[in-house]
C-alpha cells in the first residue's frame, strides 16, 4: 500500500494540476539533496516526493491511484455550487461585467456534528452615553447569556470606556453568582476608546484559543472612537488570521459604521445596527446561538485572479448580508448548519484577444475551519467561462437577478452616502429617491417612507439625520435576508 501522495504534498483530493505542481516545487526546494547535504532523511523524503509527483502529475496514473483511496478521503467536506450571470463571455471591445454566485452548504455527514463549545468574549462599551436603559439591557442580556452557557463553554466580559478592564476573566465553569454580581456592578463613565477594549477582549479569547472552540469577540458600542481605528483594524486582521472573529453591535447613530464593518469583514464577523434597547437582546441571543450551531467556523478563500480580470465587488448574501474584502485571502464567514453560505462576486473582464475561447476568472481554494475536525478541509474553486462571439441569448438565472436586484439597492444607498461625503447633495437626494421608488414598488412602503424622509432631510440640511444613514444602510442590507429571498434559495 503506497502512502497517500496527497497528504505527502499537503494537498486535498480535488487538487488541480497547478496546485500539484507548485506544492511539489515548494517541497522539492526544501528537501532537495543539494540543500541538505548528508541528510539521509531529506534524501528519502525527496525520493518519496518525486514518486508522489510522478503519479499525481500524470492523469492516468493519478486516476489509478485515486481508485485505491478510501471513500472518506475522496468525499468533499462541503457541497459547492456556482451560478454565473452569463453562460459565456461576449467577445466585445468594452470591458464587461460578469457575476458569479457561489453557494457552499454543509455536506450530508455534517448533521452528526454537535454544537461546538464557545470561547466568547463580550466587549461592552461603558462610556457615559450607554447610561440608563441601554446598559441595563446589555447587563440583563449578558446575565441571560451567562445562564445559557454550557459547562464546556468559555465566557468572558470586558468593559471599556477611557480604559478597559476584565470584568469576567475567561475560564471554564465560572461561579455564576459572582459573574452575575460583577455584571450588575458595571457602571458608565468616560468616552469610547475602542482599541483598549478590543485588545483586552482579544487577549481573553486568545488565552484559550483552539480549533475545537468557536473563538469570537462580540463588541457592543454606541460611540465613535477617535484616533485608534488604525491599530484596531490591525488587531482585527491579526485576530482573523488566528481564527478569532469579531462581530459588532452598533447602537444608535454615533458609531462609525464603515470602521466597524471593515473590522468585521477582515476578521470574518458581522455588524448589526440597532436603534432600540430591546433589539440589543434579540441580537445578542441570536448571535450566540448562531455561533454555536455553525457547521464551519470560518471559510477563507485564497485566490489568484485571471489575466485582465478584476474583482470589483464581493458581497456575502447569506447567512449575514455584508460586504466582503476583494483581496485574497477573503474571509467569507461561517457556514451555518441548516443553510448554505452564499456570496456573489462581480468581475470586471477587460477586452481579450479574439483567439481565446476560454477565460479564467480566478483560481482559488476555499479553506473550511470545521471545529473538531482533524482533517484539513478545503475545496477547489476555479471560475472560468467560455467565450462566444454573440450575446448570450439566455437570461441570467433568477437567483442572480434576485440577489443583484436587492444588492443594487444597497449600492445605490452606498453611492448616496459617498455623494453626501463629497458634498453632491442633489445627486444624493436623487439616489435616495430612486431607492425609495424601488422600495415602494416592492411593497416596502414603510422603509420607503423612511428613505424619502431622509432624502428631504438631506435636501434641507445637506446631511443625513442622526440615525438615518445607518437605518438605510442596514435596512437595505436586511432586504437580502427577507424570507422571499430565502425561499428561492432552498
Amino acid at each position, binding site marked *: 500500500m503506497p502512502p497517500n501522495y496527497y497528504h505527502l504534498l499537503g494537498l486535498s483530493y480535488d487538487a488541480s494540476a497547478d496546485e500539484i505542481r507548485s506544492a511539489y516545487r515548494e517541497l522539492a526546494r526544501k528537501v532537495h539533496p543539494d540543500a541538505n547535504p548528508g541528510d539521509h532523511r531529506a534524501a528519502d523524503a525527496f525520493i518519496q516526493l518525486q514518486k508522489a509527483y510522478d503519479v499525481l502529475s500524470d492523469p492516468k496514473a493519478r486516476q489509478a491511484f485515486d481508485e485505491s483511496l478510501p471513500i472518506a478521503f475522496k468525499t468533499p467536506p462541503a457541497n459547492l455550487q456556482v451560478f454565473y*450571470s*452569463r453562460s459565456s463571455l*461576449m467577445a*466585445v471591445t*468594452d*470591458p*464587461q*461585467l*460578469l*457575476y458569479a454566485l457561489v453557494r457552499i452548504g454543509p455536506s450530508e455527514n455534517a448533521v452528526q456534528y454537535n454544537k461546538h463549545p464557545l470561547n466568547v468574549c463580550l466587549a461592552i462599551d461603558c462610556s457615559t452615553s450607554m447610561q440608563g436603559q441601554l446598559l441595563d439591557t446589555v447587563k440583563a442580556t449578558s446575565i441571560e447569556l451567562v445562564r445559557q452557557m454550557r459547562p464546556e463553554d468559555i465566557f468572558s466580559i470586558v468593559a471599556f470606556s477611557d480604559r478597559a478592564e476584565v470584568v469576567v476573566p475567561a475560564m471554564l465553569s465560572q461561579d455564576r453568582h459572582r459573574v452575575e454580581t460583577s455584571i450588575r456592578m458595571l457602571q458608565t463613565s468616560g468616552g469610547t476608546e475602542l482599541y483598549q477594549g478590543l485588545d483586552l477582549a482579544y487577549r481573553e479569547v486568545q488565552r484559550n484559543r483552539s480549533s475545537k472552540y468557536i473563538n469570537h469577540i462580540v463588541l457592543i458600542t454606541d460611540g465613535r472612537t477617535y484616533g485608534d481605528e488604525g491599530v484596531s483594524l490591525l488587531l482585527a486582521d491579526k485576530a482573523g488570521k488566528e481564527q478569532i472573529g469579531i462581530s459588532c453591535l452598533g447602537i444608535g447613530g454615533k458609531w462609525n459604521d464603515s470602521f466597524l464593518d471593515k473590522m468585521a469583514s477582515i476578521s470574518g464577523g458581522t455588524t448589526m445596527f440597532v436603534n432600540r434597547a430591546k433589539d440589543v437582546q434579540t441580537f445578542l441571543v441570536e448571535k450566540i446561538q448562531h455561533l454555536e450551531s455553525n457547521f464551519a467556523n470560518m471559510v477563507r478563500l485564497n485566490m489568484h485572479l485571471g489575466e485582465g480580470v478584476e474583482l470589483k465587488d464581493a458581497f456575502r448574501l447569506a447567512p449575514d448580508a455584508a460586504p466582503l474584502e476583494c483581496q485574497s485571502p477573503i474571509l467569507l464567514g461561517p457556514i451555518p448548519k441548516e443553510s448554505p453560505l452564499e456570496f456573489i462576486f462581480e468581475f*470586471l*473582464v477587460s477586452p481579450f484577444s479574439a483567439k481565446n475561447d476560454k477565460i479564467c476568472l480566478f483560481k482559488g481554494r476555499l479553506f473550511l475551519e470545521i471545529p473538531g475536525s482533524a482533517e484539513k478541509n478545503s475545496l477547489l474553486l476555479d471560475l472560468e467561462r467560455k467565450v462566444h462571439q454573440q*450575446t448570450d441569448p439566455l*437570461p*441570467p438565472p*433568477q437567483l*442572480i*437577478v*434576485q440577489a*443583484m*436586484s436587492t444588492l*443594487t*439597492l444597497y*449600492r*445605490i444607498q452606498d*453611492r448616496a452616502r459617498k455623494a453626501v461625503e463629497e458634498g453632491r447633495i442633489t445627486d444624493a437626494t436623487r*439616489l435616495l429617491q*430612486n*431607492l*425609495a*421608488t*424601488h422600495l*415602494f*414598488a*416592492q*411593497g416596502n*412602503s*414603510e422603509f420607503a*417612507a423612511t428613505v*424619502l*424622509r431622509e432624502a*428631504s*432631510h438631506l*435636501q434641507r440640511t445637506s446631511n443625513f439625520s442622526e440615525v438615518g444613514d445607518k437605518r438605510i444602510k442596514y435596512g437595505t442590507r436586511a432586504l437580502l435576508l427577507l424570507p422571499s429571498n430565502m425561499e428561492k434559495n432552498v
Partner: protein
Amino acid sequence: MITCPNCRHSELPGALFCSHCGALLEGTTGVATQNMRSTGQLADQVTSSSPPPSLPSAELQSAVSLCVVDSGQIIPLENRDEFTLGRSAEGQPILPDIDLAGFRAYEMGVSRLHASIRMDGKQVFAMDLGSVNGSRLNGQKIPPHKPCALNHGDILTLGKLKLQILLRR
C-alpha cells in the same frame, strides 16, 4: 456600453441593473422582479357610485375617508394606518397608496408623492411630503414634513386639488 432605459445612465455590458436608478437593464427580460401593487381595487371603489356626502352626518364605512370636493366622490381609507397621497405617472414606478391621477391631479399640481395621512389612535394627521406645490389645511399652508392634526370636515388642498376629511364619530 449599454444604456439604462429609465435614466440613460451608461452601464458596462453584462450589468444586470442600473447602478444609478436601480432599473432592470435590457437583455435580462423575461424575469419580472418588480411587483407593482395593483390599484384596481381602489379604482373600483372610487368609481362606484357613492352617494354624495351630506355633511356632517354622512354614514361613513371607514374611520377616515376623503371626499374629492370637485366631484363629490368618496375614497375610504381602510385596512392600514398610514396612506400616501399622490398621482401615478407613466414610466414612474412610484405608486402612492391613494392614486389621485383620476381626478385631474396633474393639472391640479399634485406631486407624485404629495402628502400622507396617518391614523394614530383616535387622532388623524396629515403631512406634506415635500411636494412641489405644497399643501394647505383649511386654506393655511402647512409646513412640509410636519404632521398636522385633522378634524372632521377639514379641507386638505394638495396643489389645487381639494379634499375634505371625513372622520367617523
